[in-house]
């Protein structure tokens, strides 16, 4: 990551608290959001990685988080399914409401939460099992035993991930034998096999060639019908191609958030403009 010295650090307090009023640069006016994030801050030990972020994520839309690498996109994304809980030096302040209820409340069953909020990782991570078992893993975990139902789920998920035709003859081969792009689509299929409401995607195409990237972008458009997608990407072209809304993060802060076309064509913040015109990052 390269951050030119000329880049002005946003002055403290420039980002108003959500409660303080509506800032058009941060609030595109989303109705019935699936997630509402309120004043979220995150520390790795003493180091603060996220600063007081408030944002609302629309239902059945694709929201993209962009920003230079190291700005906290992945960290932020992992907050939505509480995957940061695995790290022992993380402290979180603020709140995230999912369907109006805090995901941090003690009443929340974390395994159920994670079933409803799936995730696809930057580096594809199929289990060292067969293709079939990879997809069936989630449903099995959640109690599906019936072989026929599992077969159905596997086929439906693979079709939804546009992988079925390529692998239907070798469902019982090891998933590690698939190409990188196929593995990533397998991970998407695996994520939607448990019928989540939301799929979080953390730079799903960063390790893929353009053709595989195009297939996944296409796939995301199809998935939008049924799922809310949040994608982290460092590629502005990708964000502009696929997303409906885009949030720009910089140094752990939410700088600007709005409808994608508007943000790319007419950014409201100078930092955003600098970033999308490629003057840094």
């Amino acid at each position, binding site marked *: 990551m390269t951050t030119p010295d000329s880049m002005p650090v946003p002055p403290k307090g420039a980002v108003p608290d959500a409660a303080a009023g509506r800032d058009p640069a941060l609030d595109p006016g989303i109705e019935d959001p699936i997630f509402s994030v309120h004043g979220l801050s995150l520390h790795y030990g003493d180091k603060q990685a996220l600063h007081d972020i408030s944002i609302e994520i629309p239902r059945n839309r694709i929201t993209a988080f962009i920003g230079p690498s190291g700005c906290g996109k992945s960290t932020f994304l992992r907050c939505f*399914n509480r*995957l940061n809980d*695995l790290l*022992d030096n993380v402290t979180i302040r603020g709140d995230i409401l999912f369907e109006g209820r805090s995901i941090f409340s*003690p*009443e929340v069953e974390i*395994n*159920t*939460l*994670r*079933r*409803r909020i*799936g*995730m696809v*990782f930057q*580096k594809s*991570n199929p*289990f*060292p*099992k067969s293709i079939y078992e990879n997809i069936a*893993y*989630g449903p099995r*975990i*959640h109690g599906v035993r019936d072989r026929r139902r599992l077969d159905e789920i596997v086929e439906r998920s693979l079709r939804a991930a546009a992988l079925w035709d390529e692998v239907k003859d070798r469902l019982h081969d*090891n998933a*590690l034998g698939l190409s990188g792009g196929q593995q990533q689509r397998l*991970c998407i299929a*695996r*994520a939607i096999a*448990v019928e989540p409401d939301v799929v979080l995607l953390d730079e799903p195409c960063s390790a893929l060639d353009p053709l595989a990237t195009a297939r996944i972008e296409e796939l995301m458009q199809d998935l939008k019908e049924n799922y809310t997608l949040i994608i982290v990407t460092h590629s502005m072209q990708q964000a502009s191609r696929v997303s409906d809304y885009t949030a720009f993060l910089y140094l752990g802060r939410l700088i600007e958030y709005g409808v994608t076309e508007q943000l790319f064509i007419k950014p409201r913040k100078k930092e955003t403009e600098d970033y999308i015109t490629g003057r840094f990052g």
Partner: protein
Amino acid sequence: MPLARRIPPGTRQPGGEPRRIRGTTARRRLAADRFGRWLVAAGGVGIIATILGILLFILIEVWPLFGGARVEPLAGVRDARLDPAALVIDEYRTHAVSLDRDGRVRIVDLERGVVDDELPLAGDVGAPDGPPTALAPVSGRPVVAGGFADGRVVVRTVSFAISFDDTGRRLVAPEVSAPTVLAAPGTEGRTVVRLAVAASPAGDELAVAAAWADGTLHVFHTTREENDFTGEVETSVEDRPLEPLAGGPPAALAVSARGERVLAATADGRLALYEAGDPRPSSVSGPGAPVTALTWLVGDRAAVVGRKDGAIEVWFPIRDRGETRSRIVFVRAFPPRDAPIAVLAPSLRNKGFVALDRGGGAGLYHSTSRRTLWRGEAGEAARTLVLAPRADGLLVGGSGQLALWRVDNPHPEISLGTLFGKVWYEGYPGPAWVWQSTGGTDDAEPKLSLVPLLVGTLKGTFYSLILAIPIGVLGAMYASQFMHPRLRNAVKPVVEIMAALPSVVLGFLAGLWLAPLIQRVFPGLLLTLVLVPLAVIAAGAVWHRLPARLRHRVPDGLEVVAFAAAIVAAMWLSFELSPWVESMVFGGSFPDWIHAVSGIPYDQRNAVIVGIAMGFAVIPIIFSVAEDAFSNVPRTLISGSLALGASRWQTVTRIVLPTASPGIFSAVMIGFGRAIGETMIVLMATGNTPIMSWFPFNGFRTLSANIAVEIPEAPYGGTLYRTLFFSALLLFALTFVINTVAEVVRQRLRGRYADL
């Protein structure tokens, strides 16, 4: 090796002075690089060479075990008067005494190759008519006997007096004793037709079995007693008549040194065994080819039978439990020879013997190992032969000549069959696997079966691994997947220090402290198997019921502290309840109870003790390797599983465990290898009894402990010494095979996860 980086020395780089500086640094770096590479290669090759060297050394020590005997001519005597029926040779192979068919005893100097002296067998005892009618065949002992037509039997013993002349040369002076005449009432005037003679190792007892033409059988037993004060020698003779065989005088006779066992062969090839206290045979075998030669082996507990059809067989007198009389039982046969067996002569050193057939073929055999160690031609003229007392020479006699052969026969009692197969030893009711390197008596043979030691090795390994594998693997799983990192960072080094504990300390504690303790509280130990899991389940249930608020206050992975308290409490309770359980369930004493139930006595130092002590040595190794295997499972897989809503337990059992399985497998295998080779703990925590039993409450002896126990007792280069090296080789091979299999399996398993 990257060729491009090799710059030939002395090559000048073009470009003048500035280049030279860079050239020298490059050259120096190259030299350092080359030196480093050389050093690493030398180290690697050195290690391989050392291991191969050790292997080679062991192989060289083991190799002679399986070689045969070397027999080569040493000396010969030609004298037309010689026509031996029996021979005696001295310990140093310098002199021989030949009992010739003309009834004369001739003393032969083997070194000079001449007949020194001769005298009539009967000497001046009366004047028997003509030459002897029967001569006792070779017994291996310095005694000769002949029977005459007048019914008398004459016995003479031979001694070789040793002295040294001025130059320190050893002088051997053969002396033939005055004749002892044996006569049985009612046999006067009847021709003696068959004789056998034997003597005790000390020479103070003689036995003669004799058969007369009418079938009468007698056994004489003479005892010489020397009065310590007066020097007077008193000889007592005991004469025992035996019931005659059906079908006339025996075809062959053999007598034991004390006369208590006589074996007689009938004309139709049956063997009749006579025992002390009964004139009737206690057992008669079935018929066979006519017996042409018969002898007891040293110790008089096995007989070798040679037959007309060339068969050579070994028979044992077996006394069944509770019986007072023995059966004569066929034990084993050797490859038959082409001609009838003429003579069988026992070795005095071991259970070996030599055979001569009528075709002049000779052979050297060993009864227990069933080996034919040598076969050769003694010549058509050969009539009899005898093994030297030290079994290092073979004297063959024929009409007009004697030939002395040197015998080099270091390890006749070892074969793969005796090391691994069931062997029927003398005095045993049947074939068995036995390790007993030294016996209670001089003529007891070493029993060197490695099978009880292999069983012991596997037993110790088994009992320690059933403890160590679950604890090691599950502990590693817990530490790497569930434990709080801060606690893990403390636990791992502590467990690894456990591995550094000298095993002699563990063995010492196990043998002297743990063994008596377990004997007292074993019921408590059993109780922990029930109460500890119950306590953990109960603690889990309580934990789950706790208000979420309270539960969330304990950091993940530190719950273990609360659980540890429950486990400790359950163990304490178990041991407190031990006496109560012992009296309620085991009738007051667990060792007595287990003895009564299983029929096997409880040993204080038993396999359970070794399991615990060796488990303690193996757990840290398994833990450490398995922990690494668990920790090396990519975090992305774990995150992937958790992100699907799997619980930590589901993630561990369904993703982490299979992925880490190659590493866990090698952890188990490394533990296995350690347990197999472990010496000190088993040495100190068991009774080292080489028994074949998988029972947990008795002892055993492992290959490694056996080497430690026996090597101080094993003379350099001896059979035991080499057998111990062989067992070391076996241990070497065992670990090698286990490690190879482990590595192959691990590579296979790993292949499945290669792309992670």
